[in-house]
């Protein structure tokens, strides 16, 4: 196959990726878009077998096919079986292995070129190795945080910022060493320091900010792929990698805005913010705790109810029960809507996926900007397993980790009902003052059990 034909087919695959991203911007076209992307990727993979070795069968072809088969055997079941609640971890993990793959490709290409490499190639290689390793290590730490294999709180160590800065200097210096002297030892040092930097730079990120980091690392991996496309002189890799890098950057910014955070604050905030020990007077204060019957009565005589779902709902697998409740209320003539915070759940848009899983039509899921003005006309807000996204501390307490994050203004509604397992604060670890207000009723227990009780109490009314 000629170079030109190969590049043309590669370009077609690149267009598939553009169409895929474009399709993903609306629920109606999204699935088709994703399929177009998959087709593009498949074509690109198949034609490289006919091109890479001038039309002859590839060297090591059997091994390559075996490796692909192995990857499919690992990847597909993981993608099929993962629960929707665990989606952020899976995305982080897939992103990490992608970054790792790009770094490995660059390393192999570097070893093969030896001393004959042009400077520009070496620079691109070093860039790929650095960013790929950072993305790989960072994603693995992100995965461990989300899977709760390690603490979700920011990990702060003495002289943290200095250590991170020093590691970064080391990464850049060793990169320069590779470029100036060549050889495999400098590259090894460079790779290891980059891995270390990836770990250090994610450790201090608090649980609530992890989604932003996933998106940022996704953009990083995209850029890595683009750089390796330059090293291998493959147009398709440049197009695909750059698309992901650019869209990932925009997405990261959109998310940071949704959380009211600057990107810098997210990444290095843990070191600059004062350690906010949750002040210990919390347990002593009284809260108003109600029964399922009380909650059912409140809901039954409301005209408008807004349900605010949080990750606790998903953990309890209560999506279907909450939908049952919403349908029941609607049949009694109550106006019901879901108020979805952009970062409800553990990654942006996560709650939409979780509720879609329970067959809630996406038209009922109202975004924050649209639902906030309606709270004063809302009789009852039912907060199910959410905390941080309705926490007024984001507005009232400068210095707390979520300060500045836009929240759902549920305090403006007539009544607020919290379904909670306990008084434990949310993922970000911040006390919620709203729990102690007079208009607030708490119903303790597993979200699913509580909702089931409320549903049967409602039916009995």
């Amino acid at each position: 196959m000629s170079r030109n034909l190969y590049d043309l087919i590669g370009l077609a695959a690149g267009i598939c990726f553009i169409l895929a991203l474009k399709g993903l911007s609306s629920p109606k076209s999204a699935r088709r878009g994703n399929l177009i992307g998959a087709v593009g990727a498949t074509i690109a993979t198949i034609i490289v077998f006919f091109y890479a070795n001038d039309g002859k069968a590839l060297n090591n072809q059997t091994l390559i096919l075996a490796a692909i088969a192995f990857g499919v055997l690992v990847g597909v079941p993981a993608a099929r079986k993962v629960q929707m609640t665990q989606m952020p971890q899976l995305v982080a993990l897939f992103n990490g292995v992608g970054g790792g793959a790009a770094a490995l490709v660059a390393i192999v290409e570097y070893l093969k070129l030896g001393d004959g490499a042009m400077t520009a190639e070496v620079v691109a290689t070093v860039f790929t190795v650095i960013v790929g390793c950072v993305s790989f290590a960072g994603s693995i730490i992100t995965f461990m945080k989300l899977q709760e294999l390690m603490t979700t709180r920011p990990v702060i160590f003495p002289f943290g910022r200095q250590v991170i800065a020093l590691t970064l200097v080391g990464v850049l210096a060793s990169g320069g060493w590779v470029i100036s002297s060549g050889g495999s030892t400098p590259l090894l040092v460079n790779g290891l320091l980059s891995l270390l930097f990836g770990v250090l730079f994610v450790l201090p990120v608090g649980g609530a900010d992890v989604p932003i980091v996933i998106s940022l690392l996704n953009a990083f991996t995209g850029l890595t792929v683009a750089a390796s496309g330059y090293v291998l002189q493959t147009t398709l890799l440049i197009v695909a990698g750059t698309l992901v890098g650019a869209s990932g950057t925009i997405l990261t910014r959109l998310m940071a805005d949704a959380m009211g955070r600057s990107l810098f604050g997210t990444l290095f905030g843990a070191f600059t913010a004062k350690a906010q020990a949750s002040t210990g007077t919390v347990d002593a204060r009284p809260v108003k705790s109600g029964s399922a019957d009380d909650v059912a009565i409140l809901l039954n005589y409301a005209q408008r109810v807004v349900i605010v779902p949080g990750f606790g709902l998903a953990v309890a697998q209560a999506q279907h029960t909450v939908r049952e409740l919403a349908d029941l209320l609607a049949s009694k003539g109550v106006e019901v809507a879901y108020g979805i915070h952009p970062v409800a759940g553990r990654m942006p848009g996560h709650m939409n996926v979780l509720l879609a899983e329970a067959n809630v039509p996406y038209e009922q899921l109202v975004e924050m900007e649209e639902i906030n003005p309606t709270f004063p006309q809302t009789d009852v807000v039912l907060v199910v397993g959410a905390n941080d996204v309705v926490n007024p501390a984001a507005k009232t307490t400068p210095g707390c980790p979520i300060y500045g994050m836009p929240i759902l203004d549920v305090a403006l509604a007539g009544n607020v009902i919290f379904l909670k397992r306990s008084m434990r604060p949310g993922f970000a670890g911040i006390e919620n003052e709203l729990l102690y207000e007079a208009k607030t009723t708490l119903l303790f227990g597993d979200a699913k059990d509580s909702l089931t009780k409320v549903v049967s109490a409602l039916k009995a009314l």
Partner: protein
Amino acid sequence: MASELMSNEIALLAIFLLSVFVGFEVVSKVSTTLHTPLMSGANAIHGVILVGAIVVADHANTNLELGLALAAVILATINMVGGFVVTDRMLQMFKGKPKVNKDAGDNK
């Protein structure tokens, strides 16, 4: 030779820059509803590094190079195939067709 190389570099640079703008443009109007599938879909797209991994596996001269390249093939395949499958699984639900999820077991 040198000038040919140069024009090739400039072509690649042009492709890079145009892709940046397309990437910005395509994603800037996405509703928050689809952020998760979008991230996952974009993630799958960079799995196309598989192409690069196959090329270096073909060119590998030593066992070390071959081993690293094959590892890259495995990782890239997981990224690409897994990414598209899981994105499709999510988007299928957004279609809103009644579908009982048998995976939604009793995860407390």
